[in-house]
């Protein structure tokens, strides 16, 4: 890993905040530290879920990550459109 664990956490949150869509695949976070192994990035992303800074979003067949406030707003918007 080129980044420390905390730096990687910050980079992941930054990516999840600025990405055009609120839901991101774990693979989308690999670019946050190209030198880190995919499993290391996955473990850091899952730590962020435990801390409540990210949350899981599931399509049913695929599980993705999202910033809680962003995804909740999106879901509320979708429900009011239904």
């Amino acid at each position, binding site marked *: 890993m080129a980044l420390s664990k905390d730096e990687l956490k910050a980079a992941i949150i930054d990516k999840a905040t600025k990405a055009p869509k609120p839901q991101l695949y774990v693979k989308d976070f690999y670019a946050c530290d190209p030198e880190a192994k995919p499993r290391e990035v*996955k473990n850091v992303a899952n730590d962020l879920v435990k801390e409540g800074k990210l949350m*899981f979003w*599931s399509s049913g067949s695929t599980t993705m990550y999202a910033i809680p406030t962003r995804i909740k707003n999106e879901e509320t918007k979708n429900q009011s459109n239904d």
Partner: protein
Amino acid sequence: MPKHDTPLLDELEKGPWPSFVTDLKRQAETKPECWDILGQLELSFKDKITHWKHGGIVGVFGYGGGIVGRYSDSPKQFPGVAHFHTVRLNQPSSKFYSSAKLRDICNLWEKYGSGMTNMHGSTGDLVLLGTRTENLEPLFYDLTHDLNQDLGGSGSNLRTPSCCIGTARCEWACYDTASLCHHLTMHYQDEIHRPAFPYKFKFKMSGCPNDCVASIARSDFSVIGTWKDDIRIDQAAVQAYIKGEYKPNGGARTKSKAFDMDADVMALCPTKCMRMKDGKLQIDNKNCTRCMHCLNMMPRALRPGTVKGASILCGAKAPILDGAQLATLIFPFIEINPDSDYEEVIEIIESIWDWWMETGKNRERLGETMQRVGLPTFLKVMNVDPIPQHIKIPRENPYVFWTDEEVPGGFERDVREFRKKHAQ
């Protein structure tokens, strides 16, 4: 009293088989939301489109799998199924339960859900159908604290590993499938409960090539029991089958005609590696492909060899994107050794994951990645030398693609030197 008219669904109760419609109507007497399942399904039959929406942020804290969010797209018309989430429970290895455990699970589901179940889903889990978002955390608390029962996998997680009954009840099993399944389930808890991969990943373990869990057709990582040495033959029992003293196929054969060794066994051997000589059955074991047909027909006469292990196959999947795909044999034989905590199996799994997590595209199953990069590349990644068993038929086109390292001297050459030998 039915809440919705369901003339189309009622037709399904008229056939000779038990109908889920009847089950739902019976369940609706105590769980009124089941009327709305029937009503919504009737509407789907009329509209020829599903009225379920799935996915979302439902789940239990810290888990990225085990709950599949499901909602009605017509909640005002069918309020009982406005939320109708599916809960997957990790089934015990080989699906051995006590009846008390099943009662406890069903009682819990009557308390928190619709009471409807699907035992089992195609992944292997116990599937509990239909609950509301606010019931999920209390249900999960009771499941884990009172029943010592965990959720299974869903989404891009490792899916709940599943296996056949193995050595627990089957004499053909070449390794203890339940033990390996349990070990992998415990070893990879994080991968089962949290997303780890580009897409779903499934382990399935069968004790012999009969492959009762269809791992060759349904799993990314298929462990199929096999043997290295010769099929064990009891010649006296072979004669007993020929004379009609033993019923073929364990008595399950439906044909009324007498057992015919030539027609029923030897003619159906895919590699024709069997023959009768001087009244004795001979098998050319080197040419046996472990199809299991002869063992299935004469279980008292033929048994797997004694040097047992498993073949590893990779990349099967159901038809979602590119169509159904059977698994490809990668390792013809490995030992399945519980004394080393299945170290050899785990090493193979993790080399696949390390590669696939980097190379696989989002929502691409391992089999699709293998197909995209080609088997030679995958074999190199796995550090496996190609062998005849890796291919189905000899190649049909004359082009062989060599890499620079595979050609003595590489592709760099002196053209003038070349032309000296090949005059224009």
